[in-house]
């Protein structure tokens, strides 16, 4: 039974067949038992006894016989007079009430014309006795009410039913599990792939099956293979392009210096130099970004976050102070904090966010960098005074080469297009999250990193 279809079909079918047979058997037995009970009673001496009791002692005799009848206590036998009353004055069960009412109605009708119906009595499905006073007594014999319960208790039939229940439940459960368990695997894998782990495969656990699910697992893994290949190809391409672009750039710069020697310093040559440098910086950032996309080859290690922030801020201060920018950077360390992560990626992340803030701050605006700890997360907040971005663009600033229109005018440096994208990637790589929000007069970028000590 390799095919899932056959498996489902056979399992369900067998359960249904068993149920049908069981139901039919119970129904048949019940009907048979009822019929024989009534028939037995009719032909039994009981009817003859009742009739003679009535003949000899009239209504009282019949009542006496009924009281002494063993079945009377269980309300199995009712004897109803022509007034619709039980001889023992018991309440009639509904199954008896209805025919009694019908008979009452028939009596109230005008009697049929004598000539053709004198000896004809309408057929009655119940035993009727006619007393010496010509009164009619009707006997109702009911099957025992707890017949099913009795049948179950009889001869260990209950155990059989219980067993049937257990077996069918087990079969159903196993069937359900063969379907649901691989589906859970698929879900786990799909989630892992969505969160960037393209090494995930399902075939190891599911692929041994030869049914449709096993085939699906193979197809799923094939899809992941293709996805991974395309991904690697793309990052490899980006890297190669970056490297290939560098060779002509390197030659260009040497040629530029040779030209300078021959023609002397020209403003145009300086310009070419500057643009070459910008191009180079941009290529560097693309390379950095694609490296982070591909996978870090770095070793995880303990990172003293406050120390790293000190050194990044120092570097950025140095870089921008050197270039005559007026913005200053404030650093607030609420608490010292060590996390486990990829140091170069994290450094690059913080560096890019701080540089971005400095680039966007107005000339006299300050940049504030703060480190705090909330629950089990290290929180690095970088605030600038650059006027922020429109709210609906807040998520998009982490996309590569995304530039807010509001901010675009102020950006003159080429790294602007990738800085936050690099930061975002590096944060994810370190298991953290990065979000942006607007403050009163600027943008606030918050990096949250899990504090996980290495053991």
């Amino acid at each position, binding site marked *: 039974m390799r095919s899932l279809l056959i498996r489902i079909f056979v399992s369900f079918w067998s359960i249904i067949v068993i149920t049908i047979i069981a139901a039919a058997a119970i129904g048949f037995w019940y009907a048979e038992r009822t019929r024989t009970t009534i028939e037995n009673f009719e032909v039994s001496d009981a009817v003859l006894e009742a009739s003679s009791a009535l003949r000899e002692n009239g209504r009282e005799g019949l009542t006496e016989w009924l009281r002494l009848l063993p079945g009377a206590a269980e309300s199995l036998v009712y004897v109803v007079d022509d007034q619709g009353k039980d001889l023992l004055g018991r309440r009639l069960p509904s199954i008896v009430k209805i025919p009694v009412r019908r008979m009452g109605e028939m009596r109230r009708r005008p009697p049929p014309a004598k000539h053709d119906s004198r000896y004809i009595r309408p057929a009655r499905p119940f035993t009727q006795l006619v007393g010496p006073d010509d009164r009619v007594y009707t006997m109702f014999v009911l099957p025992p009410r707890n017949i099913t319960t009795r049948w179950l208790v009889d001869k260990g039939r209950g155990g059989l039913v219980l067993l049937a229940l257990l077996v069918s439940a087990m079969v159903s459960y196993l069937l359900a599990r063969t379907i649901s368990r691989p589906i859970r695997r698929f879900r786990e894998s799909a989630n892992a792939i969505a969160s960037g782990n393209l090494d995930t495969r399902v075939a190891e656990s599911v692929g041994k099956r030869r049914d449709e699910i096993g085939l699906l697992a193979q197809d799923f893994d094939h899809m992941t293979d293709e996805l991974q290949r395309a991904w690697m190809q793309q990052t490899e391409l980006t890297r190669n392009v970056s490297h290939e672009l560098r*060779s002509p750039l390197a*030659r260009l710069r040497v040629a530029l210096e*040779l030209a300078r020697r021959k023609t002397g310093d020209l403003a145009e040559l300086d310009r070419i130099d500057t643009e070459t440098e910008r191009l180079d910086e941009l290529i560097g950032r693309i390379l950095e970004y694609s490296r982070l996309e591909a996978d870090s080859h770095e070793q995880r290690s303990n990172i003293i976050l406050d*120390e790293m922030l000190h050194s990044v801020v120092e570097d950025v201060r140095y870089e921008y102070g050197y270039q005559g920018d007026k913005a200053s950077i404030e650093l607030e360390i609420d608490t010292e904090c060590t996390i486990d992560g990829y140091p170069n990626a994290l450094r690059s992340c913080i560096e890019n966010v701080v540089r971005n803030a400095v680039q966007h701050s107005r000339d006299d605006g300050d940049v504030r960098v703060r480190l705090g700890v909330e629950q089990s997360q290290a929180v690095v907040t970088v605030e600038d005074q650059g006027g922020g971005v429109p709210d609906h663009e807040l998520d998009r600033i982490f996309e590569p080469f995304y530039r807010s229109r509001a901010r675009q005018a102020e950006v003159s440096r080429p790294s602007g297009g990738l800085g936050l994208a690099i930061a975002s990637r590096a944060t994810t790589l370190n298991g953290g999250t990065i979000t942006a929000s607007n403050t009163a007069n600027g943008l606030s970028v918050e990096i949250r990193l899990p504090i996980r000590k290495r053991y």
Partner: protein
Amino acid sequence: MMPPMPDSKILIIDDDRELGEMLKEFLAPDHLDVSARLNGEDGLQALQDETWDLLILDIMLPGMNGIEVLKQIRQDSDIPVIMLTARGDDVDRILGLEFGADDYLSKPFNPRELLARIKAIMRRSRSDEKRGKALTVGSLELDVGSRRVSAGGKSIRLTGTEFELLRCLAESPGKVVPKEQLTQQVLGRRHMPYDRSIDTHVSNVRGKLSSAGVDNPSIRSRRGVGYLLLLDVEERR
């Protein structure tokens, strides 16, 4: 004025033939005689056949990559090596410095910067020859003339840059030498932001000292400032 010197011989290992030729032209006026090899194997052969004053080594080489070439060179030579790395490729850069490169430049580099670094390294190796004094700090002995370091008679092999770094620290034991000063003296250039070269060199020297069993003096760092060579006075004997 310096006396006229014979041309220094510089080997470039880089697969970009045109770049090599342009550099040859660019460096010639400064008495630097440049030869180029296009791959690691040829480069290693050239290093064996002739003596060179300095090597410029590209990390991205076809076949045997620059790091492997560097590893082989460092097995028996302490020729000054300037590495060319791709910018943004921190891993290659750090790896290169760890395997004993003296300095690095990211490609595409400013050729004037390359010239400045070559000169800095040349100047250093020349000036060393004139001063022949010996320095002793704890169990560490530095012979500045022959650029040799030994501890208890056992010699420790350092590259030119590593030796220079240790010498800078050894000249004023117990005093913090700022990173800026170390960069200036050891690498002959200004300390730049995001530059971890000195830190990598320090960690190399530390590693070599500790594997030679030298634990007194030890190189300590002062966060955000620099490094010092600390001599533990209460040394247990």
